[in-house]
């Protein structure tokens, strides 16, 4: 029983890391309808920003945290300007965006390898490493923090998108930029804003990831898991992304813990595909019959 509880906690902790990454990814997806593979790169650089602000600039943690998030936001906006905007202006099909995003992700990762170097870095200790012990179950302090942060991010985003006028403008732009322009919406500004928020979230995720694990140029690769989770949860649905992430985390953990860690991904993918066969729009996606 204690082991089961421990495994559930492990799963939630892994899941909330996925969730933190998936929210930003899913936000951009819900607006632009393409998978922004450069998101991982921005997360990675966000982690480096945080690391250097803490170690080189000796900022206090909260300042470094905000600083890293802002820098990442800036970076995401630059990526949008350089890699996506020209495509957007030509109404290029979504495949081109994906390829451009891949290019950006290759670029970012290797740029860091070439400049900062391929070594791993460790965040200075901010929160005490020692976990909270309840009976024979251990809960990391950072895990709790990450869980709370993802929940807060999600709540804020959902509020922003569903309840504010700008949020609606964001969605309108996503669905039909031309009509949005006719409403007087400054579509370029709106998209910049979305990428900035996405980048902000990437920065948060990057710093958290760096603190929990480590910082290295290839860490963006882990976002593939949040990509999977977001699809599983229902693309474009932010709560779906979070729930999908948590489920994926728990599922992986339970499979490792109770079936086979060797075949973990095999089993979890099989389950995912099984779910998609029965719910092709993901867990929280909307089922719509295509209107002809």
């Amino acid at each position, binding site marked *: 029983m204690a082991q089961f509880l421990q495994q559930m906690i492990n799963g939630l902790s892994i899941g909330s890391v996925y969730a933190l990454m998936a929210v930003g990814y899913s936000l951009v*997806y819900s607006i632009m309808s393409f*998978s922004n593979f450069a998101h991982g790169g921005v997360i990675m650089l966000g982690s480096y920003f945080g690391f250097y602000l803490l170690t080189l600039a000796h900022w206090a943690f909260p300042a470094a945290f905000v600083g890293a998030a802002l820098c990442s936001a800036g970076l995401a906006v630059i990526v949008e300007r*350089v*890699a996506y905007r*020209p*495509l957007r202006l*030509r109404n*290029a*099909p*979504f*495949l*081109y965006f*994906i*390829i*451009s995003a*891949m*290019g*950006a*992700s*290759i*670029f*970012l*990762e*290797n*740029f860091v*390898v*070439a400049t900062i170097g391929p070594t791993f870095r460790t965040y200075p200790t901010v929160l005490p490493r020692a976990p909270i012990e309840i009976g024979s179950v251990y809960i990391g302090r950072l895990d709790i923090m990450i869980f709370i942060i993802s929940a807060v991010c999600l709540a804020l985003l959902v509020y922003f998108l569903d309840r504010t006028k700008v949020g609606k403008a964001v969605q309108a732009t996503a669905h039909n930029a031309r009509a949005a322009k006719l409403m007087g919406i400054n579509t370029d500004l709106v998209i910049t804003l979305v990428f900035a928020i996405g980048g902000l979230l990437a920065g948060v995720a990057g710093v958290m990831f760096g603190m929990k694990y480590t910082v290295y140029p290839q860490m963006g690769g882990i976002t*593939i898991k949040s*990509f*999977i989770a977001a*699809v*599983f949860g229902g*693309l474009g649905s932010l709560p779906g992304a979070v729930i999908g992430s948590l489920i994926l985390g728990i599922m992986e953990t339970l499979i490792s813990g109770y079936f086979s860690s*060797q*075949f973990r*991904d*095999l089993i979890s*993918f*099989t389950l*995912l*595909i099984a779910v*998609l*066969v029965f719910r*092709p*729009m*993901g867990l929280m996606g909307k089922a719509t019959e*295509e209107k*002809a």
Partner: protein
Amino acid sequence: MNWFYIKGILMLAGMNLMAVLGLSLLTGFTGLFSFGHAGFMALGAYAAAWAGVRMGLPFLVALLVGGLFAGLVSLPIGRLTLNLKGDYFCIATLGFGEAIRLILDNVQTFGGARGWPGIPIRTELWNVALICVAATLFMVRLVNSRHGRNMIAVREEELAAKTVGIDTFKYKMLSLFVSAVYAGIAGGMMGYYTGFLQPKMFGMARSTELTIIVIFGGIGSVSGSVLGSVLLTALPEILRTFAIWRLVVYGAAVIFIMISRPEGLMGGREITLEAIRRLVRGRRAEAEAGAGAGTGVGEVRR
């Protein structure tokens, strides 16, 4: 440049071309985005090696076995996932690719993650060239038939395709099957080229690279895929001297190409015999009359 080295690049380009042609049919013509094609390559590679090494079949037959095996596996996968839309299908293929790799990592008869050495070296420039020419011809014929047009229709507007009587599922399946066979043969050639197989060789990076080549060459263009394979295989070689900056330049180049020429190299056009003939005739006329005409690029099927 040394011929031995160029030969290596050409063989590599040929193997890439094989896989890219298949993916081009799936992504470029039918509009389905796959992240798992390295998985089909792996299946083909291991099956071909098995057929050649363990069953003692001749090289070309072994390749065919590899291709068909990959194709066969694609059928149940397609059955389950081809009804999924866009990114959902993409995730399913990604999962499939990773799952194949994980299985191979654990199958100790083929060496597991430690790999399978000692496969005889059989891949030569001539047989790569032969296979590629045959594969290209087949592809050109396919896309220039009603079958190819139906696939394009699926890409352009699936619902409308259905209402003009196109069995869209069947055509998605067909293009997945053909592309899996191509990937399988490409994988088979790889095994007989390196003499060694390891699941690591078929990671997601390879799938992504293939997709990049397809889009780079131009959606819905066979000649674009050919050109793209050759150029993008050569590009990293050309960039070799950049050492650690190599992939930085590569990534930047991909973005640059996308934003400066988003229709890809060929953008749905084809280089056709007729166009080349026109070009040659044009050149001759140019030589004779001092005026040129013809671009070598014909607007066919578009």
